[in-house]
């Protein structure tokens, strides 16, 4: 496509086609990101128009902020359990829903339903379930486990977050696994059957290795969403009782916007970003090595 037009008209074409996205991308992602790095070296309080440079002091505060590391540890625990439970349940559902059962698309649609709604609404629904419905059932039927609200118990409140995350994301990951499972070529499974492989062997030796790309996507997505969860945390437990469920994203928010410690808050956000970036990149790097060709 050799066009003999002038520099001016080529520039106009470039601006028309790439201008709007590049401008928005730079103004909303790149500039704030770089400015955010600068902010971590200042002591801005959110009100004054000026701020002074304080060097690495904010990063020092991050490492001394025991609450940040406590909520980070809690988030790690949360991510570990949610990633495992979400993916096991999602894979199981996807496996059962690709065998050609009656009404399988009805089931898929049902399991996907929670993903249509935002974390705020989901959090409030489950607040009602944990505070009212389960307590009511616990007291009427004498189930001690439910007779007091899980949301008022510091240990159980953590598990409410895990339960809601599994309920919320299992359907989404199921859809991705369904796509992966339908992509496994039927002829090689048939060949394996003729060679005498049973269902378990076919699953562990053929289906799962061929599904590695789906696992990479699902684990990546559930890792990222787990580390960055905020809405459900806010609506379901608000970090309570007694800050026992304050996950790291909420901690950063509180640090910056409520304690007005913007420099430290932003430094914590960047430290968090670096840790999550390293974890997710390592995950993708190592699981890419496990990919096989059919």
């Amino acid at each position, binding site marked *: 496509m050799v066009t003999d037009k002038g520099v001016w008209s080529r520039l106009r074409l470039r601006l028309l086609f790439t201008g709007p996205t590049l401008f*928005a991308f730079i103004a909303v992602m790149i500039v704030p990101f770089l400015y955010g790095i600068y902010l971590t070296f200042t002591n*801005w309080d959110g009100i004054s128009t000026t701020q002074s440079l304080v060097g690495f002091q904010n990063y020092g505060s991050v490492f001394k902020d025991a609450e940040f590391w406590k909520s980070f540890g809690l988030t790690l625990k949360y991510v570990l359990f949610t990633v495992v439970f979400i993916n096991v349940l999602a894979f199981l559902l996807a496996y059962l829903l690709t065998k050609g059962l009656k009404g399988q698309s009805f089931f898929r*649609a049902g399991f996907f*339903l929670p993903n249509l709604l935002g974390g705020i609404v989901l959090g409030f629904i489950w607040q*009602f379930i944990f505070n*009212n419905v389960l307590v009511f059932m616990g007291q009427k039927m004498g189930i001690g486990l439910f007779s007091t609200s899980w949301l008022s118990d510091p240990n159980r409140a953590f598990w409410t977050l895990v339960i809601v995350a599994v309920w919320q994301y299992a359907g989404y990951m199921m859809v*991705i696994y369904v796509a992966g499972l339908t992509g496994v070529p039927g002829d090689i499974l048939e060949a394996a059957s003729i060679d005498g492989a049973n269902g378990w062997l076919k699953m562990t030796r053929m289906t799962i290795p061929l599904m590695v790309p789906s696992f990479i996507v699902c684990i990546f997505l559930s890792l990222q969403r787990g580390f960055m969860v905020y809405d459900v945390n806010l609506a379901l437990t608000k970090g309570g009782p007694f800050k026992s469920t304050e996950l790291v994203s909420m901690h950063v928010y509180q640090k910056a916007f409520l304690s007005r410690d913007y420099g430290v808050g932003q430094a914590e956000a960047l430290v968090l970003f670096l840790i999550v970036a390293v974890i997710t990149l390592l995950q993708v790097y190592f699981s890419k090595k496990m990919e096989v060709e059919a």
Partner: protein
Amino acid sequence: MQRFKKQTSWLTIIGLSVILFIFIVPFVLLLFNSVKANKDITSSPLTLPTSFVFSNYSIALDKMNYFHAFANSVIITLFSVLFISLFAAMTAHYFVRHDTKFNQYTFLLMVASMIIPFQAIMIPLVKIYGSLNMLNNKWALIFMYIGFGCSLAIFIYHGFVKSIPKELEEAAMIDGCTPTQTFFRIVFPVLMPTTATITILNVLWIWNDFLLPSLVLVDPLQRTLPLSTFNFYGTYTVDYGPLMASLVLSIFPVVIIYLFAQKYIIQGVMQGSVK
């Protein structure tokens, strides 16, 4: 053997139904309780409503400023999604057809930026746009959605533009189309299925987004549906009925759309993830 297979398939259906029941029951209970009086909700949350208290809904509609928030959500979602799809398709097309080093690096930068979570941007974002006096403005929020959403959209479009044969565009150019006309008459229509996928992913994200609009739209009149639901819950804790009704009201529009477009939504998520 045949009989054994049939039995296991029935067992699977029963097992799946139990799991589905657990998945759906929170919504059913929510719906039942949204029309009950407060004392019935606390004394028997599990039963069907015996008398209907529709005032729950009128209180919620009124106090949430429902129709206003709904309109705000529609405007923000509609324009953001429209602009993201259009501009991202144009950029992806330009990047594929003008394969220069500069364009390659720009594309790589956009793809790499997708790993940056919103939380790492939000504090400087609020500071910058606050000092420019651009908070409390729907259009500023839409602009931000374009900035945050365009990378993924360009990435998905990029893969599909590559599969469009170049000859198709060359033929149009020979017939006298300008590059811009070629894009709008030939390329963009061919990309329609991809556009549908991207639209679905972005609608699910923007319609339900909470953190970004809560930072940008501080004025009560600008609130989107998730914001007004959250605010209503925070200020109105006297009785459960209206709270339940407010949740049903914010779920309702999405579920209606889901009933009709369910197949496309699930397909969209599938295609968006496979890349």
